[in-house]
């Protein structure tokens, strides 16, 4: 329990450091590291993440339409409430954890064990400035961008599939969708996924910089801790967001008394 509290406190301190030291992004090596992180998480992963996200999103629509025997209005509501607000950001976050979270935790743990973090200190460079700030900002921005791509493709794919399987045209479905959707839905999803990305990055950086040992065996352990805790944090943040913004969580199973 004390260990969990220490890790939580460590992550909060690291988040505070990132917020206080955002100006360090103007320094050339940190800016370069930010660009690399955005390229790695947001650009080079786009095709794979978007395809997998779109596949999962479309699959959900196909199942729901089949099971509920949905009409156009219900299909659009499912697209909006499930895919746009919840599944899109969650899929993007889980895929970012799988791909970038593990890479960051492993890379930093290796750097810590091999003495490279100490080398940075010898150069009077705070490892949190050079290693953590660009990764947190880069992963947060990339997660928001990836969520947007996943949403567009999953919603588009879902509409296309709905138009083929139920008695409604694509134009009718799109019209219904834009009538029902509000800017809040998009802003909510973008802010939420930005925070998902930041939380994932902070947790993975924390575990990377604090591996549970000094031997090479500590590296996979650091990665496992990072992945487990960032997945839990994403789920927790998702529930908190849904409750705060829409007054309900767990897809409506828990409702706020307003």
């Amino acid at each position, binding site marked *: 329990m004390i260990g969990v509290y220490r890790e939580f406190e460590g992550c909060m301190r690291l988040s505070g450091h990132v917020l206080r030291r955002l100006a360090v992004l103007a320094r*050339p090596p940190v800016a370069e590291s930010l660009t690399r992180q955005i390229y790695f998480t947001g650009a080079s992963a786009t095709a794979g993440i978007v395809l997998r996200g779109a596949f999962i999103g479309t699959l959900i629509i196909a199942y729901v339409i089949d099971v509920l025997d949905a009409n156009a209005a219900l299909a659009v509501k499912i697209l909006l409430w499930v895919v746009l607000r919840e599944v899109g950001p969650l899929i993007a976050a889980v895929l970012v954890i799988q791909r970038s979270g593990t890479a960051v935790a492993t890379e930093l743990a290796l*750097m810590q064990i091999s003495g*490279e973090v100490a*080398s*940075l200190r*010898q150069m009077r*460079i705070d490892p949190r400035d050079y290693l953590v700030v660009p990764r947190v900002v880069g992963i947060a921005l990339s997660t928001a961008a990836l969520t947007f791509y996943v949403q567009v493709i999953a919603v588009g794919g879902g509409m296309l599939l709905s138009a083929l399987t139920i008695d409604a045209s694509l134009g009718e479905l799109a019209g219904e969708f834009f009538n029902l959707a509000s800017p809040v839905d998009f802003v909510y999803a973008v802010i939420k996924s930005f925070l998902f990305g930041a939380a994932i990055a902070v947790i993975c950086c924390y575990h990377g910089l604090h591996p549970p040992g000094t031997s090479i065996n500590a590296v996979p352990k650091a990665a496992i801790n990072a992945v487990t805790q960032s997945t839990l944090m994403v789920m927790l943040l998702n529930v908190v967001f849904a409750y705060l913004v829409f007054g309900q969580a767990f897809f409506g199973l828990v409702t706020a008394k307003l």
Partner: protein
Amino acid sequence: MSPEGVALGYEPPAGRGEGRVWIPLGGSHRAASLGAHQRKALVGAVLELRPDPGTRLVLLGVDVDGLGPTVRAALRSRIGFLPADGGLISNLNAWENMVLPVAFHHPERMRAVAAQVNGLLSDLGADRHALLAKLPEKMTLFEKKLTGYVRIVLERPDLLLVEDPLGALDAAERAVVARFPAIYLKSCPGGTFVQLEVAPER
């Protein structure tokens, strides 16, 4: 003893059985009789500016004990350290490793850095085309030392500590490393170059 005129002074407590290091300001010096433990303690104390209790540490004419954080940080910025393995960052190539501290602390000096790197590498007789794009995993120990050395000299420290500079090198590489002090003193006139060599285990 007065700290005046001393570049590096390290006096462990009498009971520890460790030698005293007392190096004057300016020129090239060797601290050759250090045991591995003492060398580690000395390097740690110098880099953190926090000697073990009872140990006296003098750096660049200043007794470190009792200095405030701002003065400590200013003093630390005048000290460079080259570890035995070069201390490189594995995901940066040689060029990126060389310019990392300058780009981080003094981005305004970056315009002049390329010419300085070329000058230093030609003084050392290194093939810059072969070296600059290499990642540390592809480098020999000599190339790592060379890269780390250029990185430190670009920072122009007033005191440069080089750990075990000749260890595990062949004769031709040792001849190049033997030029390190002269090249440093040419770049940083008035600086102090200290080679930390390990005494053979008995």
